[in-house]
């Protein structure tokens, strides 16, 4: 029956959305969500007129864009590579090892980064020094923050995210490859003309879903990795709101900015879906 599932979604997902109303009120803990003085767009104005709004929005968008730019193609490339390996044992070993980073928690990951990239004791700087270069303080230098953040994100995600592409590639009809072999196709052309077009639907769908997260840069990882010295490139919307919220216990402010984030995300998903439908006839809805 369809009804229980619909009821679940209505009760637990749609009704609570009305709680977003605290973004437009001056929320007082203890009086309930719907009480409180109506302040309209006060929190939004407060956020956008603060001196750091532009910086945080820019950092959020840039970090997300870099994450997508580097983190999206790599699982696909890796999946294609893995499927080309002829030795089953080697393929399984590479796959299993690639899944490992996904399972370590953010805290452990940032601990590893802090350890490995440290200025005087980190192994990366030791390597640079032994090759004759100058040691770089990766963790304090704002110019390296995005690289470290996106790089570690890609390192964590490429193996696990490649699973779905490997599954898609496994589902490709082998007779297509045989038809190609009759025509004397090279392996590279095989990838470009058979493999990629056949998984293009999967790629587009996952891309749209990825775009839907563009404004939600993870608070946890940025918060663990940043410090006052790198605020210039590291401060994102969520960390800025966290600090402001701590200063004044302002739940409404946090809700307002969260709402703003969600609206932008939704706009992105909507536009991406429209574009995808026009270009490839496949879309999420």
């Amino acid at each position: 029956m369809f009804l229980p599932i619909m009821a679940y979604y209505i009760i637990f997902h749609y009704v609570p959305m009305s709680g977003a109303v605290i973004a437009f009120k001056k929320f007082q803990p203890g009086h309930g969500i719907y009480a409180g003085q109506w302040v309209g767009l006060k929190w939004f104005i407060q956020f956008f007129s603060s001196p750091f709004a532009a910086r945080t929005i820019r950092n959020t968008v840039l970090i997300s864009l870099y994450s997508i730019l580097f983190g999206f193609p790599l699982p696909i490339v890796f999946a294609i590579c893995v499927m080309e390996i002829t030795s089953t044992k080697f393929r399984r070993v590479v796959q299993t090892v690639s899944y490992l980073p996904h399972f370590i928690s953010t805290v452990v990951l940032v601990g590893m980064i802090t350890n490995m990239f440290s200025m005087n004791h980190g192994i990366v700087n030791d390597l640079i020094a032994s090759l004759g270069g100058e040691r770089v303080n990766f963790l304090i230098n704002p110019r390296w923050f995005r690289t470290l953040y996106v790089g570690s994100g890609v390192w964590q995600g490429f193996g696990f995210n490649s699973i779905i592409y490997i599954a898609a590639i496994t589902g490709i009809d082998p007779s297509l490859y045989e038809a190609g072999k009759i025509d004397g196709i090279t392996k590279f052309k095989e990838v470009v003309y058979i493999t990629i077009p056949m998984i293009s639907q999967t790629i587009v769908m996952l891309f749209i879903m990825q775009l839907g997260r563009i404004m939600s840069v993870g608070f946890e990882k940025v918060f663990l990795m940043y410090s006052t010295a790198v605020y210039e490139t590291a401060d994102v919307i969520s960390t800025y709101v966290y600090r402001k919220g701590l200063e004044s216990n302002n739940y409404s402010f946090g809700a307002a900015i969260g709402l703003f984030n969600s609206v932008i995300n939704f706009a992105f998903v909507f536009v991406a879906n429209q574009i995808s439908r026009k270009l490839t006839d496949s879309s999420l809805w």
Partner: protein
Amino acid sequence: MKSSKNTLNGGGDRIFMTLVYVIAVFAFVVTLYPFVYVVAVSFSGSQAVYQGKVFLWPVEPTLAGYQQVLKQGGLWTAYGN
């Protein structure tokens, strides 16, 4: 499986397969090395780590790090939770 054919048509295919194996081995090393490093460091003496002598293998092997962690009462509470 797609990869079970072994026919290589000429130089283009060889370059492609070399690239595939390079990428696979690179991914393998890059993914595995931090774990190996962390394990090596955890078993090394603190002086050796401080001086940056640990690469793949524990230097001055010691269990001091593990002893310290296990002595912390908080760890067992955290596991319980």
